């Protein structure tokens, strides 16, 4: 495990750096403001069933700009400012750097989503019958898995360029491609169609919305995220040999 020595140090610094800069607070404020409006307009309505389905659907879409905004500076900024040189000449390796950065970003995502748990408490207090906890848990699991995957894509994009804006756009377009890849199924040969459908995020998210936590979906999100992180580690290490 010596390849991952220093992961905790990197993750901790990364997480704290979000809160040292206005950008981190702005992202949280932007997300909570919009999601608060959604909650009050679509969930907290008299006569509505005690479900947070609309909340999770909008949250998923909000992650589309938010996750790239969280991840765009992770490595790109180190490349731009030159701090990558100090990091890569310290005893930590590229793997520890990438995983540490990723975990720091995941921590920030969790911190951003954490205040929305109050909505569950609120919904539980005001609704009768009380909300079914199954879809609530699966909804949060889905949001976290989507966020983790988006951030992993963002880490890879950030490792490829020193330009944060470019990293943001690369992440956004890759996510959009994964979301709408099933629309491309009609253009591919039949034998490739199952592959295209299996890559589609929309189909998997639909299951979570129904309250189903399928281990195949869990495996897909986690293994795809790991694959993007592996590519990011390779991109960082390749810089030594460029």
């Amino acid at each position, binding site marked *: 495990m010596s390849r991952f020595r220093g992961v905790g140090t990197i993750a901790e610094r990364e997480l704290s750096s979000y809160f040292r800069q206005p950008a981190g607070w702005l992202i949280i404020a932007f997300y909570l403001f919009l999601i608060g409006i959604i909650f009050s307009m679509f969930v907290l309505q008299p006569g509505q069933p005690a479900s947070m389905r609309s909340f999770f659907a909008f949250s998923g879409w909000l992650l589309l700009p938010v996750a790239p905004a969280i991840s765009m500076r992770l490595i790109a900024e180190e490349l731009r400012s030159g701090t990558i040189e*100090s990091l890569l*000449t*310290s*005893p930590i390796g590229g793997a520890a750097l990438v995983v540490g950065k990723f975990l720091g970003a995941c921590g920030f995502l969790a911190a951003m989503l954490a205040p929305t748990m109050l909505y569950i408490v609120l919904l539980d207090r005001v609704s009768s019958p009380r909300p079914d906890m199954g879809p609530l848990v699966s909804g949060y699991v889905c949001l976290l898995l989507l966020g983790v995957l988006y951030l992993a894509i963002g880490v890879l994009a950030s490792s490829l360029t020193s330009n944060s804006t470019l990293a943001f756009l690369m992440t956004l377009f890759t996510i959009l491609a994964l979301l709408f890849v099933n629309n491309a199924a009609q253009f591919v040969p039949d034998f490739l169609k199952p592959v295209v459908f299996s890559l589609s995020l929309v189909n998997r998210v639909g299951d979570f919305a129904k309250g189903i936590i399928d281990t195949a979906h869990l495996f897909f999100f986690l293994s795809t995220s790991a694959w993007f992180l592996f590519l990011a580690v390779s991109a960082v290490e390749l810089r030594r040999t460029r």
Partner: protein
Amino acid sequence: MVLVDSVHKSFGAVAAVRGISFELKPGQVAGLLGPNGAGKTTTIRMIAGYLLPDAGRVVVSGYDTVAQPVGARYRLGYLPESTPLYGEMKVTEYLDYRGRLFGMPRHVRKPAIEFAVSRCWLKEVRARKIGTLSKGFKQRVGMAAALLHNPAVLILDEPTNGLDPTQIRETRQLVRELGADRTMLLSSHILSEVEKLCDRVIVVCAGKVRADGAPAQLVRDHGNSAKYMVQAKGGRPGDDDRLVRLWSNLPYVQEVVRTNPDKRGEVTEWTNWVVSSKAGAPDLREFIAAAAMQNGTVLRELRTEVITLERVFLRLIEEAETPAKPAPAEPLKDTLTPSVAPPTGTVTPGPAAAKPAEPIAGGAR
């Protein structure tokens, strides 16, 4: 302590480092000197482990930077060229972070931070955010971070780059202190800096080592000719030719050049000359004066131009950058040639110069 063995590095079609080799002994303070684009930073980055060499090897304290990178990095402190730091962190927070990256436990980290803060004169700014510090202080923070884990080898890339004169003086003082008890390699394109701080100079140009040694030794080995600036009374017909012949025939004289313009048809009262000697020549002033007296020429000035490391450096760079040129067909302007000299535009000494050193007529003591 540091071994750089036939290291090569290319970026695409550009060969940045082409077979650089040198070895630093424990306690040695060496300067990597060269013009911009010479390959200094690439060499330093390979030693620090940020870049991997295409060929050759780098060994730091017995650890190969490719095969045993972690071992090498623990033994090396590195200050990159632009001192990249995290502006949002406080000085001690940043040092604590660096200490943790090097796996230093808290009980070791705390005293190490105190030592680095005091050694790099950072006490007054220890609680301030790095982004609010002056460039000089940022440089010191970078150095404190580099020496925090008490490395045996310290590598500083352009440590005074972009600093004002006061900051440069302070940084040099700090570098001098740090170099007292560890092996240090610093790169610079500022010659005076290397001359003042280092006991060894490695001149790099176009990706190769052009010279390597103590500053005084480099001046001795590569100083080639000393130059003597002479002002002589002119005005008599044939004076110039006679002076050239007399001086050119002195042993060790390589070249005699008249420097003030020889206007056609005008009699110049005072003529200026540069007499260049070969490498290893003794002081020729008394012989130049004696030869002038032999010609009945009055001298108003005779002085030696001191050969500095700067001149050696410039010459080495010039040699490296200039491809071998064919001899010009015409004599150079303002260069006088004696009748026996080849028409190369450069006055070469006569047969006497080829002989071993011997007492010069009229100049014997």
